[in-house]
């Protein structure tokens, strides 16, 4: 059964239609990639899935793990297992990384009727995961993303993802801003999370990331619609030909 099934999804932002009929379903355990020109609606799709206010669904449906996703608030979606790694991670002055992670984990535990997580045990677990991703203790003590470099912010997103162990990971241009070595480290972190029960939707402009994280399917999003779907070879084709065909096709 598909973990997520998006049908004929239309959405607008500030009264402007951006998504114009997206059909996409991802089986449990599969990794799909979305590529597409700037402004084609990739981040919009990720925000719509995460439940951001101001992104209004005007038509269509999204079923996640058997439930109507569009009926859920953003926090409920996260607890249900959707994780969005932001294209532009947000700075939270005054909230330390450790506090932030603990709040997120405890929110899930509370929803599951469990007590708060043991602080020492949690610290140990986070430190181990942080180390693997090159996130230092010092970064965890600092306010979330404040003063972080672009690459540090992206690592931090993947750290959150590995701590929260979501069912669906939506990665919005996680590779942008990463240097070559960091791209490897982050990709390894993502690959470590690949499992039977977990699906991923990887948004990227570059084939390079897809060499590290091999997707099962690649979709081309242009003009608010999936224009083409194929296997990993599609990334190479796009690298050579660009998006010119799709701009015409949709016009």
């Amino acid at each position, binding site marked *: 059964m598909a973990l997520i099934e998006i049908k004929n999804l239309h959405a607008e932002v500030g009264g402007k239609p951006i998504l114009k009929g997206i059909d996409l379903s991802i089986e449990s355990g599969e990794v799909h990639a979305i590529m597409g020109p700037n402004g084609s609606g990739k981040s919009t799709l990720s925000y719509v899935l*995460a*439940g*951001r*206010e*101001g992104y209004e669904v005007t038509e269509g449906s999204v079923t996640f793990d058997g439930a109507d996703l569009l009926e859920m*608030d*953003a*926090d409920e979606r*996260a*607890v249900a297992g959707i*994780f*969005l790694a*932001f294209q532009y*991670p*947000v*700075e*939270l*002055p*005054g*909230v330390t990384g450790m*506090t*932030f992670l603990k*709040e*997120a984990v405890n*929110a*899930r535990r509370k*929803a599951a009727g469990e007590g708060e997580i043991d602080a020492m045990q949690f610290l140990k677990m986070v430190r181990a995961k942080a180390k693997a991703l090159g996130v230092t203790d010092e970064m965890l003590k600092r*306010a979330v993303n404040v003063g972080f470099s672009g690459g540090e912010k992206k690592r931090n997103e993947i750290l*959150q993802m590995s701590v*929260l162990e979501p069912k669906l990971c939506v990665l919005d241009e996680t590779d942008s801003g990463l240097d070559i070595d960091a791209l490897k480290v982050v990709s390894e972190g993502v690959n470590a999370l690949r499992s039977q029960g977990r699906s991923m939707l990887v948004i990227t402009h570059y084939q390079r990331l897809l060499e590290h994280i091999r997707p099962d399917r690649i979709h081309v999003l242009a003009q608010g619609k999936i224009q083409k779907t194929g296997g990993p070879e599609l990334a190479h084709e796009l690298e050579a030909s660009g998006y010119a065909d799709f701009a015409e096709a949709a016009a």
Partner: protein
Amino acid sequence: MTNDHSNPLMQVSPATPGWLKPLRTAAAARYGQLGLPKLRTEAWKFTNLKVLETLAVKPASSGEAHPDLPAALAELDACRILIVDGKVVDHGTLPDGVEAAGLDADAPDWVRETVGTIASIENHPFTALNTAQFDGGIALRVARGKSVETPIHLVHLSTAGATDEAEISHPRVLVIVEDGAILDLVESHQGTGAYIRNTVTEVSVGADAKLGHYKLQADSREAFHVAMTAVTTKGKSSYDNFALSTGSRLARNEVRGHLGGQHIDYHVNGAYMATGDQHLDTSTFIDHAEPNCTSHELYKGVLLENGHGVFQGKILVRPDAQKTDGYQMNRALLLSPTAEINSKPELEIYADDVKCSHGATVGELEDDQLFYLLARGVPRDRARAILVAAYVDEAIDTIDREPVREAFRAVASEWMTHHVAAVG
């Protein structure tokens, strides 16, 4: 009870020891001339006291029931001095190096010489009124060179019952930290019912001395809280003042500091958090009279519902005060369309080689920050509380003394959970 409309809030005078008579007489006369501040008085233009002109009042009579200290403050290791309706009821064994005295017929010379010399009755009707009417009060002195480890906690309580008349009291405190001495002073203000607490605290910080002065104003939501903290500091001393204001219907927290020596490090910071129809006024005055001093001032406000915040801060840099380094900032977070803030930061500089900055900001919660927390599964009410607490933390972080800092943080966080989360 007597309600003299020409002298609103004046009650029958308490017993007056001989040494206090001239000061009291002058103060009563001055209050008679000044009367209650009007909106046209520049220093009070944002705080309307009309309601006090006709409010039925009576002297406070000590009742039994009073609220417990917030848990975090109760757990703080401190020497507590219980002051109910302005009268000292009880104090534990004072730490080594600290002596206490009453402001009565038995007052020692150091008390008689100092009372009324730091807080002036000239332009401040409430200080004049307090001086004319205080009944009881306490003076504390830390001996030269003594470093007092245990904080002293002044627990101000008022116990007005359910009554049509507001109970009025005028707590009076004098704190002298002699040269080279170190003390942390905590004060908390709580109570039940309708009352007016008009406190005057005079503080003298000697050369090379250090005083941390931390105040929690959590008075009853029917109460009026008026406080004048007047501070004088000598060379190379440091003074660290912080006020957390969450209580009362209308409150005015005023801190006036005179920097009367070189290399003084003077801090006045705070956070005010208002909801319902609360009106919380913070007014400060910093008088740089000598060169090479630093002053730091940061207030953070959180205003919900019809909460109204007022900040008036003035820094005066006199001609001699070269190399003054002054920073003043008031930041307010408005969490409802009907919340309101009036900010008036002010610099008056007569020296030419100084580094002073001031400003005020007004903001709302950032949507993208809220969404980031939601997207990680944190429920909306909790997310708001986290963001507001983080906002206020910047001010709380200025508290120098660590256990006090954490206690105040816990009190603020408790407030967030109750009030910010609740309005969703």
